[in-house]
């Protein structure tokens, strides 16, 4: 096997020797220390294999034995190289292929996180900390130090008791064991619901725990709304949802979390001063169009200047790309950027317009604050409180119906033992 490999690397020829005396040819070759193999004889000629180096020393041997030597076939790497030299693209392709494989296998392409424990820990948080330490999608494997990342995860995440990072080819596996809260025997954790803003309770639907407020109550931020409790204690198991099956016995060691829908009327009042002399942007009429080919994060300018030669401008963006198919989206798209030059001017605006601006700002604020199930109850009222030449002071008031409950960890509860179990 090794000999064949060496012969392949050195290159060898299959030759045909005819005429003269074949035996003398072989003896003369031996005298010249030439090596021949696979010698096959026919009545008229002989075929043999010889290395390239020995072949060039064969001329005096053939002349001495009066034989004629003809090359039949060429084998080995040097002859392949001659053929390949005529095809540089093929060599480049092979080199690029090897380089690509090396490059692709030198990176991390998958980061998997495995969390063991009570599952309060989000795996994305672990991934984010690992990314800070250099372990992220596309990172060079040689730059990733598993020991350093393990230490970083343990230091940065107090919930983690143990972490290990393993590199398996192009995949990194982060295994994390979460700390478990050890409670005293016969104790369960407690999470209450408290108000996060003041309001008047309008609706309360408790799912779990004991409501402490009723419809019409006025609450302020931080007031207790629903308290976690063993409301319906039945033989050692806490009932969490009335009417649903009782939880397993092990759940007595869990944390009881109060759950409820609590909506309240909340009044939002805001005072704003809107300047009456405002800076406005007026288009000059000059425009600049740029065509940019965007490939992921890379951009290639196809047409126009790199940056518009305007001091101030407003820009609009139009994007053209291939149609998406299922969850595939073409990574290349054409972006046309239209820049319109503007100049700034000081403009006196009427009080009514300033009032409208105050209303629209309040509307934006309320829209940002409200959740999906919240709504505005009354139309917004806006009154002018103060007016000077420079500004106008506007007070805006709006009433909303909002979900105001937020969880807050309370004192652990003692589970009632068999002695204290009340009779149903």
């Amino acid at each position: 096997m090794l000999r064949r490999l060496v012969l392949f690397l050195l290159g060898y020829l299959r030759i045909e020797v005819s005429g003269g005396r074949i035996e003398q040819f072989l003896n003369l070759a031996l005298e010249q220390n030439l090596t021949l193999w696979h010698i096959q004889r026919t009545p008229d000629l002989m075929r043999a294999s010889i290395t390239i180096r020995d072949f060039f020393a064969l001329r005096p041997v053939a002349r001495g034995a009066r034989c004629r030597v003809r090359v039949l076939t060429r084998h080995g790497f040097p002859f392949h190289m001659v053929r390949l030299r005529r095809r540089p693209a093929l060599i480049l392709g092979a080199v690029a292929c090897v380089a690509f494989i090396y490059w692709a296998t030198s990176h991390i392409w998958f980061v998997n996180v495995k969390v063991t424990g009570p599952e309060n820990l989000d795996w994305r948080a672990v991934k984010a900390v690992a990314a800070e330490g250099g372990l992220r999608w596309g990172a060079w494997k040689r730059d990733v130090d598993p020991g350093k990342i393990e230490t970083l995860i343990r230091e940065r995440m107090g919930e983690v008791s143990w972490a290990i990072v393993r590199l398996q080819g192009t995949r990194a596996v982060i295994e994390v064991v979460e700390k478990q809260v050890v409670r005293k025997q016969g104790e369960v954790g407690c999470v209450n619901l408290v108000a996060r803003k003041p309001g008047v309770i309008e609706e309360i639907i408790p799912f779990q725990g004991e409501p402490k407020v009723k419809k019409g109550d006025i609450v302020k931020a931080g007031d207790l709304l629903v308290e976690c409790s063993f409301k319906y204690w039945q033989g050692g198991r806490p009932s969490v949802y009335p009417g649903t099956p009782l939880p397993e016995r092990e759940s007595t060691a869990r944390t009881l979390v109060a759950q409820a829908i609590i909506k309240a009327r909340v009044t939002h009042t805001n005072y704003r001063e809107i300047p009456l002399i405002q800076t406005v942007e007026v288009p000059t009429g000059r425009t600049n169009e740029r065509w940019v080919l965007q490939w992921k994060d890379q951009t290639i300018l196809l047409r126009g200047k790199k940056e518009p030669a305007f001091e101030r401008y407003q820009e609009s963006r139009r994007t053209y790309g291939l149609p998406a198919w299922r969850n595939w989206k073409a990574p290349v798209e054409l972006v046309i950027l239209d820049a319109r030059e503007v100049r700034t001017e000081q403009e006196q605006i009427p009080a009514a317009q300033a009032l409208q601006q105050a209303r629209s700002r309040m509307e934006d604020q309320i829209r940002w604050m409200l959740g999906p199930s919240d709504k505005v109850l009354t139309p917004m009222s806006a009154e002018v409180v103060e007016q000077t030449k420079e500004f106008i002071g506007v007070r805006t008031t709006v009433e909303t119906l909002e979900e105001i409950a937020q969880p807050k960890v309370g004192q652990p509860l003692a589970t009632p033992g068999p002695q204290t179990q009340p009779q149903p």
Partner: protein
Amino acid sequence: MPNKRDLRDKVASLFELPADVLTNCSRLTLIGAGELVIENHRGLHEYETDKVVLAVPEGRLTVLGRELSIRSISPDQLTVQGSIRSMEYSD
């Protein structure tokens, strides 16, 4: 006075050494009837598909058989392949 060759034979015999170590003789290794390795040959006299005649220190070695071919040949070793029927030494 004994000649040099007899002396070598005696030394080889005395120290129970293989004869080919000290004496200038050929060494033949026959593997079944399909391959014959001849070490310490002196060249080729005749080469046909049914007969290979070699020069060896002892004289001539004639290998008879069918479809004989020389697998490899180098100054100190020669390998004959084929269906070997007989071998014969002659002067």
